[in-house]
């Protein structure tokens, strides 16, 4: 049966990797090529690299660097950050990227999702949605590049992206980012009920039990940052990935999903 993907999500800032906490306080965690090599050797299910400074700085993808990333990956690679045109997406696919992750460019107008999906297929477009909880826990759509909470029901935005042709939704629990305190299961439940395409949950994963919990809540795949690059109470940098038997065990008692 289909395995639930467990995906390291690496954050690029400039030409180095960082790990954030609640979308702030970026901590340098090392050279991206080195980390990608390790994940390739450990046979990670898939890899996601998000350039978190691209949209903030108003620039596009760093194609030279991304080409090097693709060269190290014998696994699917998803890239996000600063993509605003079909041409940029085409260049990324030509370099060996499987999926592009769209967020800032499709916050107000989802047409870029459709344009890329029509040419390259829905499977190649992952739309990212950041959700932040307000006081009293109300969930709201969040714009990471401008650091603003947006009005309107966040689930409507998710549905719009899927209707526009997104093959997957990356659902980011902003308040859990980098905390390793566990995923926002309520958020995952709500989103997975609303859509028929795979949901990739990210934010808060601190253990394999958290991965399992996110899957039980309805995620098709689980991405994590801190869990794969930081270790211990002092958040020391250590790049790790569970071995296949550990991953099998975590899902072993869960059946009936097929």
């Amino acid at each position, binding site marked *: 049966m*289909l*395995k639930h993907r467990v995906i390291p999500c690496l954050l690029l800032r400039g030409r180095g990797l960082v790990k954030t906490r609640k979308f702030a306080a970026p901590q340098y965690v090392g050279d991206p090529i080195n980390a990608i090599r390790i994940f390739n050797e450990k046979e990670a299910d898939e890899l996601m690299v998000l350039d978190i400074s691209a949209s903030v700085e108003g620039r596009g993808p760093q194609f030279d660097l991304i080409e090097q990333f693709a060269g190290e990956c014998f696994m*699917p690679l998803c890239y996000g950050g600063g993509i605003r045109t079909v041409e940029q997406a085409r260049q990324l696919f030509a370099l*060996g990227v499987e999926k592009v992750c769209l967020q800032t460019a499709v916050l107000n107008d989802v047409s870029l999702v459709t344009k890329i999906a029509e*040419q390259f297929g829905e*499977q190649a477009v992952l739309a990212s949605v950041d959700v932040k909880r307000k006081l009293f826990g109300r969930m709201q759509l969040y714009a990471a590049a401008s650091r603003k909470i947006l009005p309107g029901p966040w689930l409507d935005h998710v549905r719009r992206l899927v209707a526009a042709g997104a093959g997957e939704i990356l659902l980011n629990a902003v308040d859990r980012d980098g905390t390793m305190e566990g995923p926002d299961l309520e958020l995952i439940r709500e989103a997975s009920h609303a859509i028929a395409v*795979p949901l990739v949950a990210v934010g808060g994963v601190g253990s394999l039990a958290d991965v399992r919990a996110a899957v039980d809540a309805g995620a*098709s795949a689980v991405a994590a940052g801190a869990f794969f690059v930081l270790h211990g109470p002092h958040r020391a940098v250590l790049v790790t990935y569970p071995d296949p038997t550990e991953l099998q065990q975590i899902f072993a008692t869960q059946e009936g*999903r097929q």
Partner: protein
Amino acid sequence: MTNLSIAIPNLGIGNFASVIRMVEKVGGAARLVDEPSEIATADKIVLAGVGAFDRGMSSLTSRGWADALREAVVHRRKPILGICLGMQLMCEESEEGSCAGLGWIGGKVKRFVPPVPAIKVPHMGWNTVTVTKPGGLIPDGEQRFYFVHSYFVECGDRSDVVATARHGQTFDAAFSRGNIHGVQFHPEKSHRFGMSVMRSFVALEC
């Protein structure tokens, strides 16, 4: 044995860079070719692609790829490996579109109909396959591969099927008929499991 060259038709859409890297990783040589005439000089072919069936077929027929491929594959019997959409294009027809396929393999391409909501379409991620006909490109034993597709091949002649997989239902994950091979998964993105498939294809005698 000299290093046999593998031609990859540039159909515009597909992760050709990854395929070339994987072929080189296992000691082969592959190049992306822009002109159908270049197929004639290659020893083997990889037909790779993603996207919609009709778009794939129209890029094959509009520029003469289909004729050049038929000559190389059907008449000269050069080994060919179809990956993902490339595999589907080798069949007769698809529910995804109205164009006729290349028709080298009897069978149709169908869309997944999820029996329960937990089965998502596209079928995306790592799945195990069951080898139904050993001795081909896919080794025996537990193998897992990366899949991403919403449509699947159903071979008309069951003896063409090499491996099956399950996603809500059983589907044909790989076929082989003489020199014609197809895999629904992405060997170029499937770590050592995919590497071994590519190694076997590179090692095939012409």
